[in-house]
């Protein structure tokens, strides 16, 4: 199969998506995660816009090119615009939260943050922090035979 232009674009889009996903699943650093997310989003946006591409067509603007030439599908372009803006909003929010988290805990490593999270939550709820040598939640599943009543 000869690699035509569209195929190369598709390979690039999927590659971006996979690269971003790889970053998302491997790194634990919050900021890198956000970057990986941006990468994956770029890939998927490219994929979306390619889904409306027709070989050799012109942009969907009337009166822009020759009348009889086919035009590409305008819908994915509109969709991509929407998707990009959504991505921007989510990323801005993520960065803002990351800033606050860095202020609060001084780290952006998810492993450390998860430990902080569990510890703080446990403190807030008034329970033993996790991974300490504490007793299990509640009782044993089926409590052992009740002890005999003591003398009154």
């Amino acid at each position: 199969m000869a690699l035509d232009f569209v195929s190369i674009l598709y390979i690039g889009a999927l590659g971006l998506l996979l690269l971003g996903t790889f970053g998302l699943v491997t790194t634990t650093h919050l900021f890198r995660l956000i970057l990986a997310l941006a990468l994956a989003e770029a890939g998927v946006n490219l994929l979306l816009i390619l889904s409306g591409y027709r070989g050799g067509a012109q942009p969907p603007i009337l009166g822009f090119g020759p009348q009889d030439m086919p035009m590409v599908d305008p819908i994915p372009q509109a969709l991509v615009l929407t998707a990009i803006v959504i991505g921007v909003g989510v990323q801005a929010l993520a960065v803002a939260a990351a800033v606050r988290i860095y202020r609060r805990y001084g780290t952006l490593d998810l492993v450390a943050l998860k430990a902080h999270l569990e510890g703080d939550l446990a403190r807030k709820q008034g329970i033993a922090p996790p991974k300490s040598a504490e007793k299990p939640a509640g009782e044993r599943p089926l409590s052992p035979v009740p002890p005999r009543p003591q003398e009154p």
Partner: protein
Amino acid sequence: MLPLILPVVLPLLAAFLVMPLARMSALIARALGPIVLTTSLVLLLPCCLDPPAQPLVLAIGNFAPPLGIVFYGDRLALLFANAVALFFLLFWDWRGGNPQQARQDALMLLLAASATGLALSGDLFNLYVFYELAAVASFGLVSLSGTGPALVATVRYLLVSAFGSVLALAGIALLYLQTGTLNLAQLGIDPEPLQGPAGLLAFGLMVIGFGVKAELFPLNYWVPEVYASAPARISALLAGLISKLAVLILLRLLVLVYGDTAAPQILLFLGILTIFFGEFSAWRAQDFPRMIAFSSIGQLGLVFIAFSLSGSWGVLAGIAVALHHLLVKSALFGLAHRWSGSLQALTGSAQRTPLAAALFVLFALSLIGVPPLPGFWTKILVLAGLAQEGSALAFTGLGAILLVTAVEAHYLFRFALQLYEKVENAPAGFRSFWEFLPSLLLGAALLAVTLRINPVADRLRAITQQAADRSFYITQVFPQAAAHRKDQP
């Protein structure tokens, strides 16, 4: 047609205006949300109580589908839209007092608008947009307290949600690439090309994407920590309402396109894992919010299992389970507002607040499915459906449901007994009756449904009849397409 569009648009308008208004008059800004939601309720309630025989179909901007976006209000959609208005009013922050009240109200309104949109929209990408709006608004709301845990939980939630939406978007792109349309009804007209591997992969990607909010198994790790750190009202809405609306998208896809494929099996498999992980994790939960959060995961697993059943039986069972869970879990989170601490610290709470403890027992009984409460009927629908499926996976699901229900009963009543223990210094619990009024109302609703189970069941059947009928949906949106199809069998 007003009931279809205004409940989506008015909250958005109000959300845009809350902050500018708050600079002029705090009172007006505060009143705006309830007024808008009440208006939506007033608009929607007649459609829900006395539903029109034909679904309401609205082409936005008068652009005939599939060119424009279409809103599709059958009984199911109207019911959920109604529930959105109702539950947002129930769990509205009436007390207020947050320094950022206007922002909070704006986010709540955005969430309400997106939830209504999720219920009504009949366009895949539009659903995705509303889904993302719900996600972003909920990120803001769950980090409302601004504490460290809330922020970390939010970011973890945000990451998985964003990852999910990337996948969902990829799924939508894949779908569009094959069909060139985003209209659900049009996708359903000729589903065969989509039932191949590429179409199914698109569905799988969307399951993962929309499964984040629906608390599907490998994507639900955010649930316990977010519900433990977010305000209980928000948790109630997310766990009760938004999760069901995410499932609704998948339901539409299942009914219209993927009913006869391997897709239900995938849902069944993931549902079994979800119910298993949720309920067993709840066993070890040490605080009330996380216990019910895990239980909510388990219940959503049940919803997925129910929807995976074939035919209208599955739709009926799924809707019943989803509505029951909507009622019960929202109410339980309503109690978590005050019972936010560890289970141990709540020992003896029944002494001061017997009504709240009694409500907990009622909800727990319904949750595990004790007759004659509605939970039992929903559960037996699912179980009988699974037994009728007869496949090995279905029997696995049957066994898993029974097993985890036993586990669930044990941990819920371990806690219930703790509530009723006699202790010296009983925890104060609720300051006033008003604090658990939403739960009380929902409990009353549960009892009312128990008594009027047959009319409710009939209503559900009518809803199912519309929702489970593929050609009905298509005919409503494309009257000409159906005629066209009849011509060439």
